[in-house]
């Protein structure tokens, strides 16, 4: 679960980090008022749950309260499309209005789990504000990483190592070490997967300041941190994706014409790949999961067909835990409910396959049955073309 910049910064503040003076605006008038209170120049920052805001025009500087109002009115109520949001973009309903600071130095600071080294890692870069992944390929010398075990935590000497690497001035080193160790404790205590301060800056008056922040919590552990669930932002998901999540389905909208309903993430990806292999374009990723109910299957099929770009659908089920008859019943219910008007290719295999097929055949609905995986993909691609 990713949280907003303003939410992440409030955690940082509690942990003793300095952040720029700021306020949250939901209207242009509020933005103007905040700009006046903070004294210009200010920066308006769109609060969406995705990165790449700067390049996409989601972070704007205003020199006067009037300009802040004008810019805010242009940003609020729009959907911001960044490199990370997908083509639909995300709605901008709030702006963080922040005092613009003169930054003497900008660094990057990150904490995450290194899945290959199976440890935690603290990363700093002498150059901040940039895409750290690209930087780590092109300018590896600017980056320092310290791997540490969860039970050990980050030791003082390790934090000092990072501070000296950044060539922080003597009076800032103590601050950096103390605050970084608090952050590591917070990271572990709250099951974070990613924590970034980018840029971590030194201001004109020589203070260490977190100018932007990003935190992602582990969804798997939210059950033991009920207070964190309150931070979840419903409005920041695609409507269909949000509804799918409520049914425990994993649906991701894409831009093609063939809707897919599959059990298992690997098979779902392979289904998208094989559609592509035969010259088609998948409209979505949809994994109905193992513990799915008939109602959820039904809803999954409806969600898939709510996408008006879908010209044909492919149901690919290899029943293991999931029973084919349950999937068939769910699909038939949905098909009747929405009066199915697009071709559907079905490939069933595994647990209760005969019952499943019988239910689909006896429904009288126009399903096209495929013998195997390849035939299913070919048929779905072919049928998606006929309709154009």
């Amino acid at each position, binding site marked *: 679960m990713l949280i907003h910049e303003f939410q992440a910064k409030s955690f940082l503040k509690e942990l003793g980090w300095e952040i720029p003076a700021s306020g949250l605006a939901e209207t242009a008038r509020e933005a103007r008022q905040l700009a006046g209170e903070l004294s210009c120049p200010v920066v308006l920052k769109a609060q969406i749950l995705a990165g790449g805001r700067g390049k996409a025009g989601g972070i704007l500087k205003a020199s006067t309260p009037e300009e802040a109002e004008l810019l805010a009115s242009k940003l609020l109520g729009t959907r911001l499309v960044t490199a990370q949001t997908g083509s639909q973009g995300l709605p901008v309903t709030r702006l963080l209005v922040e005092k613009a600071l003169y930054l003497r130095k900008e660094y990057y600071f990150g904490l995450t789990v290194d899945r290959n080294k199976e440890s935690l890692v603290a990363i700093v870069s002498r150059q901040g504000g940039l895409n750290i*992944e690209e930087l780590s390929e092109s300018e590896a010398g600017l980056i320092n990483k310290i791997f540490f075990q969860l039970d050990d935590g980050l030791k003082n000497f390790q934090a000092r190592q990072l501070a000296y690497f950044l060539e922080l001035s003597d009076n800032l080193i103590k601050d950096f070490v103390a605050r970084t160790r608090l952050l590591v404790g917070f990271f572990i205590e709250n099951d974070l997967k990613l924590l970034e301060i980018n840029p971590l800056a030194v201001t004109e008056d020589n203070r260490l300041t977190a100018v932007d922040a990003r935190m992602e919590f582990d969804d*798997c552990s939210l059950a033991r941190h009920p207070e964190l669930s309150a931070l979840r932002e419903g409005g920041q998901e695609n409507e269909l994706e949000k509804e799918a999540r409520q049914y425990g389905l994993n649906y991701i909208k894409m831009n093609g014409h063939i809707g897919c309903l599959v059990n298992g993430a690997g098979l779902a990806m392979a289904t998208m790949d094989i559609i592509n292999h035969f010259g088609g374009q998948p409209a979505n990723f949809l*994994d109905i999961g193992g513990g799915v109910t008939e109602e959820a299957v039904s809803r999954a099929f409806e969600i898939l067909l709510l996408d008006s770009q879908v010209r044909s659908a492919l149901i690919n089920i290899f029943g293991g835990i999931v029973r084919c008859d349950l999937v068939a019943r769910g699909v038939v219910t949905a098909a009747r409910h929405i009066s199915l008007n697009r071709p559907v290719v079905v490939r069933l295999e595994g647990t209760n396959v005969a019952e499943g097929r019988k239910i689909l055949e006896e429904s009288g609905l126009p399903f096209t049955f495929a013998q195997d995986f390849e035939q299913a993909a070919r048929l779905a691609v072919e049928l998606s073309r006929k309709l154009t």
Partner: protein
Amino acid sequence: MSILIDRNSRVLVQGLTGKEATFHAQKMQEYGTRLVAGVTPGKGGLKHLGLPVFNTVEQAVRAEHPDVSIIFVPPLAGAEAIMEAAAAGIKLIVCITEGIPVLDMLRAKSWLIRYGASLVGPNTPGLISPGESKVGIMPGHIHRPGPVGIISRSGTLTYEAVQQLTAAGLGQSTAIGIGGDPVIGLKFVDLLKMFRDDEQTEVVVMIGEIGGQAEEEAADYLKVSTYPKPVLAYVAGLTAPPGRRLGHAGAIIEGRQGAAAEKIRRLKEAGVKIIDNPARIGLMTAEALALKN
């Protein structure tokens, strides 16, 4: 011979009395797996599916001497179940549980190292040595004993691969799902080494997916070792949108790292035969085997 498990493996089921565990334990028994005990705290002394139930793994180990444990417990109890099995001296732990927090898994891994235990999973369908033993939740009937070793990060896609192989007349020595989570136990390289030394295995099929570096590590290993058997690979996720998480699995592309195209390039470079159409896993493996013999 198969790897890791065979008909003599004595299997403990952690969380045996739960609904999922009961269902799959029964299926394992029907397949011929030698289940010897179950553990559910508070249910010690009961009999379930004809098996003695214990309160702790330690008690079960003392009484029934299992050498493998399969775990079906809720996600937030998963890491502790792994630690408990390791501490009780079980050397092969198979964790079916999906959704264990990643920091919990880091803690569990240090216990595995301390006690010298191996883990399959978590978030895995488990493993099967056809005709010998099944320690997992996969449909047993699609498997046949034979020469193909399968290592997969996926669940249902593995069933698909097995079905294709069986249809092509190729049985399997052992099919193992290593799990799709970011932090897992045994990885491609560990299992490639086991299959290398296994007489029954003549060809190895790897099923990878986007995210992480496990396929790249396998490529590095295969490049420098003179691997004596043909290796084929399918990597799922070429069409996956970057930066999005697909499934509960750890399948997420972060930047260029972990993208399918990069994995495929590295594996190809290491001499692995790449399967570009996931419906041709069976046929291409049969071809590779025919070429070798």
